[in-house]
């Protein structure tokens, strides 16, 4: 038996479009909506143009593929919206936001020794991710949900 076995965490691996993958913590994904009804909000950033109604609240819907590849329509054969929980800061109540997804998220175990550098391209990953891990040949950035949903990206575009 190893004296210090690598620490193991759980994650959801998200398909943002046909090619882009990202991950969130195992407790951050709380709900999945198939073919969501999306409502346009004018004057909003191109990667977050819509909201959806969930539990009588309006949640922002972010299209991270649109952020990572500005000007290129996301390649999705189906559209799902994942609802994610986050805390704006430690001790704050849970808040919720949504991400557009191209497929059902996949559950994964991630060990500390899978940690890796962020992919160099698209360059936008640096703004979205807090860390990254390797899964087979793929690099999977881990999203910084509090930063995304509290407006961190507004200063970057």
């Amino acid at each position: 038996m190893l004296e210090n076995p690598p620490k193991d965490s759980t994650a959801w691996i998200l398909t943002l479009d046909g090619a882009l993958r990202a991950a969130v913590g195992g407790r951050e994904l709380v709900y999945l909506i198939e073919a969501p009804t999306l409502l346009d909000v004018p004057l909003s950033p191109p990667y977050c143009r819509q909201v959806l109604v969930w539990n009588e609240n309006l949640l922002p819907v972010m299209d991270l593929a649109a952020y990572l590849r500005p000007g290129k329509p996301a390649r999705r054969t189906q559209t799902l919206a994942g609802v994610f929980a986050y805390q704006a800061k430690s001790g704050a109540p849970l808040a919720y936001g949504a991400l557009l997804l191209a497929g059902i998220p996949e559950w994964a175990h991630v060990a500390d020794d899978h940690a890796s550098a962020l992919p160099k391209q698209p360059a936008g990953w640096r703004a979205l991710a807090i860390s990254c891990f390797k899964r087979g040949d793929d690099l999977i950035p881990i999203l910084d949900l509090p930063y995304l949903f509290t407006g961190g990206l507004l200063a970057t575009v």
Partner: protein
Amino acid sequence: MIQRTQNPFDTLREIRAFTRLTLDGRTWLLPQTEVQALEMSLDIDPEVRTPLGVGAIAFEGEWWPVYCLSSELRLLPHIPAGRRICPLLNNGADRFSLVCDQVETLVGSSRLHPVPACMASRNSPIQALVLLDQGLGCVTTTESIARLIATAEDRVDA
């Protein structure tokens, strides 16, 4: 003595009635108290112009500049077909009119939702969102629209 300043969202939540303006199919809501009167677009005198306006309407002995905004509140140089009604907006400090497709009073109480933090820039004129039977309404104020027009006019002057 401690003075508390109320944030704009809380102030809007106390408003009981909103006027609904339709601009190219999109719904914008303003406090009803800021709509002083309604005039027809036929009453616009196109010869009385402000830099980015489309004319002016004479009301109670004064000229009210009229602006034409797109569904996303961009200033338009010409009035699109179908714009017929001009609410005269007055908050005590700003006084002007907009050419709209439709203007009506929103009946019943509306639950205001804050604009999600990741969607609103600091200078956004959208103060809140309202879920309506026909979709989403954006709550704004005469002051916010006046600021938007003034910013655009400053850009033209520069």
